[in-house]
Each structure stands twice: as C-alpha cells, then as structure tokens.
C-alpha cells in the first residue's frame, strides 16, 4: 500500500469548474485577449500562406494595418463600412426576438430576400404609373408583408404540428432563392437573368447616400431594445424563451406569442429587404442579401441577444470582413483568404466564452481565496 500514500497521490493534472460569476471587467479582458491571440494566429497563418509576406516580413505592419485601412482609409470606405453595418444590424435585430424566445429562426436570409423581391416587383410593375412617394410606400408594405409571410409559415407549422423550426426556416431560404430565379427569368426575357436597375422607387438621399439607412438601423436597435425589455409583449417573449411551462402557468398562450413574434421578425427582415431594394440596389438577384441572413445569427449570438450590443458586434464583424478583403487586395491573395482570417478570429472570440464560463485548475495550485483565508486563521 506504500504506493498510495497521500504524498504520492496524484491529483488530476487539470480540472474544470464552472464559475458562479465573473466581473464584467475580467470577462472583457478575456475577450480582448482572445481577439489579440486570434490576430497573432492570423499573422502566423498569413506568414505561411502569403508569399508576399513571406518574402517581405517587414510588411507585417501593413498586414495588421489593413484592418484599419479596409474601413477607415477613405471617407467613401468609411461610409460603406457604416452602411454595411447598418444592413447587417437590421437583419441581426430582426432575428433577435425569435432567438430570445428560443425559436431558432435561421431563415433571415430568405425572409430578407423575398422582401427585396417583393419591393422590386412593385417597382417593376407599377413604377412610373403612380407618384414616387406612393410607390415607395407600396414597396415598403409589400416588403414587410412578404417577410412576415415567409416567417409566418414555419411559425404556423411549429404551433400547429410541432415541426422543427430550424429545418423549416432553413429550407424556406432555398425556396426564396429559387423564387427570385423564377421571377428573373420572367422579367428578363433575353436570358441574361440580370435585372437592370429600376428607374423608379429610390429612397431620397439624406445628405449622404447612406445616412438614411444608418439612421433607420440605429433607431431600430433602440426601439427593439425598448420593446424587448420594457413592454408586455417583450416580457412574454422572454418568459416563453426561458420556460414554456412557466408561460403556460401564468396563462400565456405560447403559440400565439410564437406566431406574433415571428410575424414581427419577418416584418423586420422585410424592412431590411426594403432598405436593400429601395435604398441601395434598385434591383434583385439571388445574391441580394449575400449571406447576411446567416452572419446576422452570429452577430445576434455574440451580442447575447442584446440589441444595443449588436451595434458593436455587427461593427466588429464588418471590420474584420473589410479588413480581410483589403488584405487580399494588398497582398494579391485568393478571395478565399478573407474567410480564413474571419474564421480564425471568430473561433477565438466564440472559444473564449468557455474561459468566461469555466475556471481551470492545475495540479498543485489552490484557489487564492483559500490561502488568504488560512492566513487570516
């Protein structure tokens, strides 16, 4: 038995314990450290992959500088940066009420795309025959309705038959894409399948071309924050999300809340689609939303479903995106490289949540508070 005497007993090398709480400052320090670490790893990967960097290591400054350059070097880039944030923010916000309800709506892409289609359809058919302001209102209504219907269908199926909303909303994205293809074939008889910019139905510029969109997105963030935290409907969404049984216990009809909230989500996607259609593109393609419906999921999660934090997380994602694009331009690398960079950094950002939730103990190290305690005794 001498082998197992206490002194020689091996404690496990590392073990994890869940933190009961963490100071916000400490949590942010962990997040910043994760981003810094991610950046370093990006540099190392770039060093291996990018020839120009490999041969000229002194250009590493340019590499990191690109993240600033991508978004802030010219005023045009800066406005584009803000505009991109605004659209991404709009879609992220639109997804958020559903997420708060633990209804995993990953159909933001499709809901936004059909709204773009609906708005452009109105401009295509009645543009020029009615006053511009009436047209703009009609386009808005069409976009809101289209988005709402696209979100309502999975919600109804879920409420009635308990279908899985994740799969359903995902599939609706593809239906939306094909619907756009069908209309493009109908509208563009020459076979090029690209619809020229519509001459009617353009939102007026407010000083800068993008200012209106940016303001709408900001107002929406504030409005949604108030809706989710200070209204009865927002409260119901939170209760249904936390516990359906509690919701039933206090007399909330959770099916009604799901349907109502999904209509809201869809309509907000509709608003985003309207901003894309009437504020920016003036046309529709299958790539009008360009995957922002999916990026928005990440923005919403990273912000822990807080609409105001989403301004920051949408900004962060956009900064990375544009920085990475700048790198591929400056260093002549393939268009896939930005995805690698963004992927690495997101990996670190999401991964660091583990260290915020858990604490790691190493063998032989005891918690500091305990040692203090002993000292007092």
């Amino acid at each position, binding site marked *: 038995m001498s082998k197992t005497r206490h002194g020689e007993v091996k*404690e496990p090398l590392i073990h994890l*314990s869940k933190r009961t709480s963490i100071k916000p400052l400490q949590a942010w320090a962990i997040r910043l450290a994760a981003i810094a670490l991610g950046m370093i790893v990006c540099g190392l990967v770039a060093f291996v992959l990018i020839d120009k960097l490999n041969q000229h290591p002194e250009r590493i400054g340019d590499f990191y500088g690109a993240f600033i350059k991508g978004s802030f070097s010219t005023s045009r880039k800066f406005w584009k940066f803000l505009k991109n944030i605004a659209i991404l923010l709009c879609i992220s916000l639109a997804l958020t009420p559903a997420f708060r309800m633990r209804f995993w709506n990953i159909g933001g892409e499709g809901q936004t795309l059909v709204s773009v289609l609906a708005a452009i359809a109105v401009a295509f058919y009645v543009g020029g025959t009615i006053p511009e302001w009436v047209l703009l209102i009609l386009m808005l209504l069409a976009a809101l309705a289209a988005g709402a219907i696209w979100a309502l269908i999975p919600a109804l199926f879920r409420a009635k038959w308990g279908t899985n909303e994740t799969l359903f909303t995902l599939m609706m994205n593809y239906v939306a894409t094909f619907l756009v293809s069908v209309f493009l074939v109908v509208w563009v008889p020459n076979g090029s399948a690209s619809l020229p910019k519509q001459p009617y139905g353009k939102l007026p510029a407010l000083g800068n071309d993008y200012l209106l969109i940016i303001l709408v997105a900001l107002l929406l963030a504030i409005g949604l924050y108030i809706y989710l935290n200070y209204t009865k409907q927002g*409260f119901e969404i939170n209760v249904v999300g936390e516990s359906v049984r509690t919701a039933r216990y206090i007399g909330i009809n959770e099916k009604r809340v799901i349907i109502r909230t999904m209509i809201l989500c869809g309509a907000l996607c509709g608003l985003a689609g309207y901003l894309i259609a009437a504020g920016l593109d003036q046309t529709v393609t299958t790539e009008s939303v360009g995957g922002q419906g999916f990026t928005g999921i990440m923005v919403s999660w990273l912000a822990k479903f807080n609409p105001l934090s989403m301004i920051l997380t949408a900004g962060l994602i956009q900064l990375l995106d544009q920085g990475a694009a700048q790198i591929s331009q400056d260093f002549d690398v393939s268009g896939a490289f930005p995805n690698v960079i963004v992927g690495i950094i997101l990996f670190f950002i999401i991964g660091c949540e583990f260290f915020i939730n858990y604490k790691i103990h190493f063998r032989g190290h005891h918690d500091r508070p305990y040692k203090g305690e002993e000292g007092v005794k």
Partner: protein
Amino acid sequence: MRKELALQMRGITKRFGGILANDHVDLDVYRGEILAVLGENGCGKTTLMNMIAGIYYPDEGQILIDGKEVVIRSPKDAFDHKIGMVHQHFKLVDLFTAAENVILGMKQENRYNIREVTAEVAKITDRYGFRLEPTKKVYDLSVSEKQTVEIIKVLYRGADILILDEPTAVLTPQEITKLFDVLRRMKEDGKSVIIITHKLNEVLEVSDRVTILRRGKHIATVNTAETDEAQLTEMMVGRAVSLNIDRPEPYDPQLLLEVKDVTIRDAEGLLRLNRVSFDVYSGEILGIAGISGSGQKELLEAIYGLQKLEAGSVLFHPGKGSGKGGETVELSEKTSLEIQQMGVHLSFVPEDRLGMGLVGSMDITDNMMLRSYRSGRHGFLNRKEARKTANWIIRELEVSTPGTATPVSRLSGGNVQKILAGREIAQNPQILMMAYPVRGLDINSSYTIYQLMNLQKEKGVAVIFVGEDLDVLLALSDRIVVINGGVVTGIVDARTATKEEVGLLMTKTETERKEEAQ
C-alpha cells in the same frame, strides 16, 4: 461487543469554486453499526459521502480503511475497498430485469450466466429479508423495489460499507419499516451502514450513532441512545427550535370549492385521475397525501386550469364575502387566465419551482411580474409595483438576497420557495394550493412556510397542501384526502387519524389489486 473501526475520515475538505462544502470533517464508522449522517439540506452530507464512494476527490484530508490510508479516485476504487453507495436517484436500466441490472457493468471471470446471477441475487434477498423477484423487469417494479435492486447491486459487489443517500424520501411508512428491518439485519451481519438523512425520527429509530454536520463542518457525533430530537435539532440548526406546529380550529368554514368526479388522461391515454371528488372549505388546510406520482400534480393543475378534464367538474362558490352575488362558477374547461379574469383568486405554488413557478434567470422583480405584468392599460411594463411586492416579500419573509435585482436561480432553495410562496400569497388568494412546499428546505424555512399557511388559513383562505411528510401533514392539516393511482382512497380527519391509517390508504388499491389477482 468490541468494536472494530471500518472507516475513518480525517480532516476531509472539499471546495466547489469559492464554496467550502466540507471543512476539515472527521468521521468514524465501525463494523456492525448503523451510522446516521444528519444535517440540513446543503450542509455537505452528500458531498462527504461522495468522496468515500469515489465520485469526488477530496482537496485535503485522509481516508483510512481498517486503519490503513487509501486513495479512492473512482467508484471502482471504492468497490475494491468494499464500499458501495446507493444514490438518491436510481441508476437502473428500465428494460433489463432486476438481476441483469445487478450484474450490469461487472467484470465476469467466466461466461456470463444469468441463472447463476439470479440464484445469487435470490440468496442475498433471502439473507437480508428483501422482497424482490430477480426476473422482473425494472419498469414493472415499484419505487421501493427499485431501491432494493440498487441495494442488492451494492451487496452483490461484496460491499461491507454501505452508504444510503436519503433512502426513505420515496417510501411509504410501511416500506420504511421494512427497509429498516433489512438494515438491522445487515448490521447483525457485521456490515457498516451509513444513512444520510435529515429526518430526526428515522435517525432515532434506526441508527446506533449520529454524526451531525452543519455548513460543511462536523458538529458532533453522539450515541443515539443518549440523545433526543430537541438536542439533535439544536445541533443541526445551531440554535434551539420549537418543533410544534400550531393548528388553530377553522373559523366559520364555508364550502368554497367542489371537485366532482374529475377524470384526466395524459397524452399517452393513461388514466391519471379517476373520478376524484372532494370539497374544500374556507379557513381550513386540506392535506393531500399519496405516494409521489399518484395524481397530485394533475389534480392541482386541473383545479388551476392547466389540465383538460375528460369528465367531471370543478365548482367554485364565491360565498357572501366576494361581493359578486355569490354565484357559483364552473372552473373546468377554462384556462388559468380566464379563471383569473373572472375574479377568482387561485394561487398555486407548483412542485417544480424553477421550471414552472419562477424563471430562474430573471431577477426577483421580474418574477413578481410573472403574475402582475398584465396590469395597466398601455403596452409597457410596470416594474415599480412589482419591485414593491418584491421588497415586501424580502422584508416579511426574511429572504436573504443582495437585492431585488438578483436572479432567482442564485438564491438558495429556501429563499426561492419564499419568493414563490410570497408572490402567490401577495395575490390575496381565496384558494392557495401548495405542492410539496417544504421539499428541500431546512427546518427554519420549513417552519416559516407552515406559519404562512396557518396565517392564510386564519384569514379564511382555503389552503390545499400536497405533502410527502406524513408527520407534518397530520400535524398541520384539518382534513386529509388520500389518493393512490389517481383514485381517492379515503378522506380522514387529521386530528384523529394515525400515520399507519394514512399509510395504508396510500397503498390501498395496490394491495387490493394483488389480493384479487391471487
């Protein structure tokens, strides 16, 4: 008889994060004795035992078996040292037979021979006086039989030191008596039995010695013969506590609620309640006794408007005091919201506090709002009123919390229950339904809750109290409705009924059915 030390713990310390679960605890167990480990919930009893059983590893301290220091790093190590633990939650495979469950996970020297195992299991059952058919599937077994399988599992592996974690929590009084007989036989056989409990009468009945823990610390170890309830409570709680429960006579009881022939089927089509009928009067505490899962949950939810009735009715008689003309209202086929909107004040403290009654991640104020958020015409929430209610509850019920903005899940079980019960009482109920209101609470909190129920009763509220501790049910209630398998097997006067009487009613149909089959 000379006593031989079987197991010793010296200075055992265990921390979880910043919480000290066990603080330099010493414990001795002799061969051929029953040791009770007594303490309130959360005092570190189970943690301490888990370290003997190899579930946790102590941060500090030593464990000695037969005087030699040992290291127990896993349940397998524990078995090698002939230590076995029966956990509170059973770990059995439903589709296997009792014997198969016993052999599960054991290394076989030769080929697996179920017949030998069955014979061996039968031998153990005979030796200690268990009642169990080894070839029965686990899903056919009653709760006490499942517990028997768990105990045999441990004995089959040759355990000499048995740890039982709250073994009586799920048993009827008759089953408890039987279990204690078995434990005594094990003791005569030279085995050491450690039973974890917070019930004093059981400690006094079955144990030889008692070790008392409080807040992770070892307070004392005494011989059971030399102590009494009052002394044990004082050591457990840290100060003298009066254990008497008041029971004032109901004042001017009026028929308030009539439950008539209520029948409910669950989603699988199984009968959950079968023609249940009883009356509820104002100013009384109506106890509901039964083995857990006999339909208590469905019954309360049916009254509250959460269950669809297959047949029967629930009639509410508002009486003169309500100012509503005293018209009788039918509550069945109405949702809980509709019942509330009719002006019927039903309050309900459900069994599942954090899964149904409260939202754990929300703070105390928002949990108050669960009930009141609809008030006010406009669409915005009124947190001011809710905060007032929250502060009132914190003050009146002495909830220990940093403030109203603390998420409820951070509070201890007792405080969570105070918040829930307080919120329901703040609704000024006419009928207050409480399901297992003191489950998991320490003695102090339990008595606070009993007092609350009595106060409501004196105000003329009808209190429906679903309980599991028959002693408390008999001491607190005016009448007791006993149900078994969804059927009312008796309604007794709690002032005259005995524990044995109620215990028999709790299992009545089951025994009758068996007699009919024979």
